[in-house]
């Protein structure tokens, strides 16, 4: 997942009759369930919306390395360390994959980094929360990757070919990530009382931020309506959040942990859970840069980029030298 509140530049969704013939033909292809490929004509708004969404998604994967990387060196066993390394490596790989998908829309990876570092592009609010104990690594896998899967499964059917194909591959790895998170907590709740307390504390801190990952209710959002018309988005934020809660509550019960929501109860009539409203003021503060770790996360990414400039320059310089050396030989 990791795309929240993606804007579309649309004042409202046009009907087919209002579209010029080219745009109408495009919309009809989407309505017929056809995939749009990089070299084909597309409305500028469609292109820009996808760039915003895919780059935000990619940035989230990259920034997401930081809270989990925070515990690789302190993982409790060699096996847990190896699994976490593999997971974080997968996520960096997802980032790479997604940057490549965005590049097919005519933006370079360096431009996307520039937008991240300047604050113009966003990444998921969730990665601005700290990982304070080993149980947080379990909670991230279980809840954060669980929420991400809710969002990403429908994205496999997204109208843009490269994004859709990237998501098919990413989803396979995400479900492994979710299982490893659940497994970490499973072991902890069966362990000592101190371990169980850590697990409950992690759930207390990660539950609401996980629900916020889906973004505020977007039933009245023109951006969401446009994204849905373009089949970039398939479900409303509230639908996905409901699905996530319905799936997760029994898992928490299985773990013997308590979800920190006094309003949570089964609603027989709707066949799902009723639950409380996340604190959206907190969400908007985090989006505005005031979360517990915003400055550190973005600071770390900027620093890595700046400190690495000499490295990247050197590789470019070497490649140019090698090309020059190869030339006279080729001319002979």
């Amino acid at each position, binding site marked *: 997942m990791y795309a929240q509140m993606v804007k579309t530049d649309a004042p409202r969704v046009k009907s087919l009759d209002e579209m010029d013939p080219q745009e109408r033909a495009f919309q009809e292809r989407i309505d017929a369930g056809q995939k749009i490929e990089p070299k084909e004509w597309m409305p500028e708004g469609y292109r820009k919306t996808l760039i915003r969404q895919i780059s935000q998604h990619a940035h989230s994967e990259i920034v997401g390395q*930081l809270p989990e990387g925070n515990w690789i060196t302190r*993982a409790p066993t*060699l096996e847990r360390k190896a699994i976490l*390394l*593999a997971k*974080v490596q997968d996520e960096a790989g997802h980032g790479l994959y997604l940057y490549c998908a965005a590049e097919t829309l005519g933006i370079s990876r360096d431009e996307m980094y520039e937008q991240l570092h300047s604050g113009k592009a966003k990444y998921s609010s969730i990665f601005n929360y700290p990982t304070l104990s080993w149980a947080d690594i379990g909670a991230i896998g279980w809840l954060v990757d669980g929420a991400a899967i809710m969002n990403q499964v429908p994205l496999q059917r997204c109208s843009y070919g490269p994004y859709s194909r990237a998501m098919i591959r990413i989803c396979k790895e995400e479900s492994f990530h979710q299982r490893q998170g659940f497994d970490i907590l499973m072991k902890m709740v069966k362990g000592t009382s101190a371990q169980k307390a850590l697990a409950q504390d992690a759930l207390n801190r990660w539950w609401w931020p996980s629900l916020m990952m889906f973004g505020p209710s977007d039933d009245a959002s023109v951006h969401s309506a446009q994204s849905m018309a373009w089949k970039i988005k398939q479900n409303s934020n509230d639908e996905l959040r409901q699905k996530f809660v319905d799936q997760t509550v029994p898992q928490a019960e299985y773990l013997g942990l308590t979800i920190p929501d006094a309003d949570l109860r089964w609603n027989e009539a709707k066949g799902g859970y009723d639950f409380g409203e996340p604190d959206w003021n907190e969400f908007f503060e985090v989006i505005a840069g005031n979360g517990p770790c915003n400055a550190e996360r973005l600071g770390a990414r900027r620093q890595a980029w700046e400190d*690495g400039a000499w490295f990247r*320059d050197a590789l470019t310089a070497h490649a140019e030298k090698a090309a020059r050396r190869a030339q006279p030989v080729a001319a002979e």
Partner: protein
Amino acid sequence: MASATATEAAVDRAAVFEFLLSMGDNALILGHRLSEWCGHAPALEEDIALANTALDLIGQTQLWLGLAGEIEGKGRSADDLAHHRDALEFRNLLLTERPNGDYGKTVMRQFLFDAWHYLCLTALRDSSETRIAAIAEKASKEASYHLERSRDLVIRLGDGTAESHTRMQAALDDLWPYTGEMFMNEASDAELAAAGVAPQPASLKNGWDALVAEALAEATLKKPVDGYMHKGGKRGVHTEHLGYVLAELQFLQRAYPGATW
């Protein structure tokens, strides 16, 4: 004919145990250092490659320390050995615990180590102790890839810009005094070599010199003269840095004694 029971017969178990610790500890401590980079590398491809290399090294740690525990015969697992020994019981080379420094220093440390690691593991594929040979068979494939990558980066950065050249030369000069330890024979090494369990460390020196000299020449870097060489890691006398590595690495096991994870 190689015998699985070489260690039960002629060779001193303690010597084999110490040797296995050194192999496992090198992988563990260097894997730890590489993990420190997570999310901070100069390019996304580097983040992926470092995590991949660290993952290989942690996997090797499990195998070496697992076998060490078996040979020791006191019921200690790989995790016990990784998380419940203090610095003086660690047998890793001082090179592996050197702080990361800038990315150039991390790459140079990796290359100097990989060149040795690859040669050592290649020799160990013929170990008379078949369990060692089996681990080396797997690990040498990984080390060969690590070496290919770090060697290539040393060449490209050495022969890149003036700044990258300066940084790589500084890294090389700084780390060089930590390379001699790889080839110093300890008392037990002769016994292990005689039994065909492991090569004499000094026997790897010529191959390493040639491999390193060739890459440094292509990187336009000046190979330092062999001068004073730091030592002690293989006997448990480490630098101050290892204590901090272990404080981090062993934190959970120490803070929650007896818990399983």
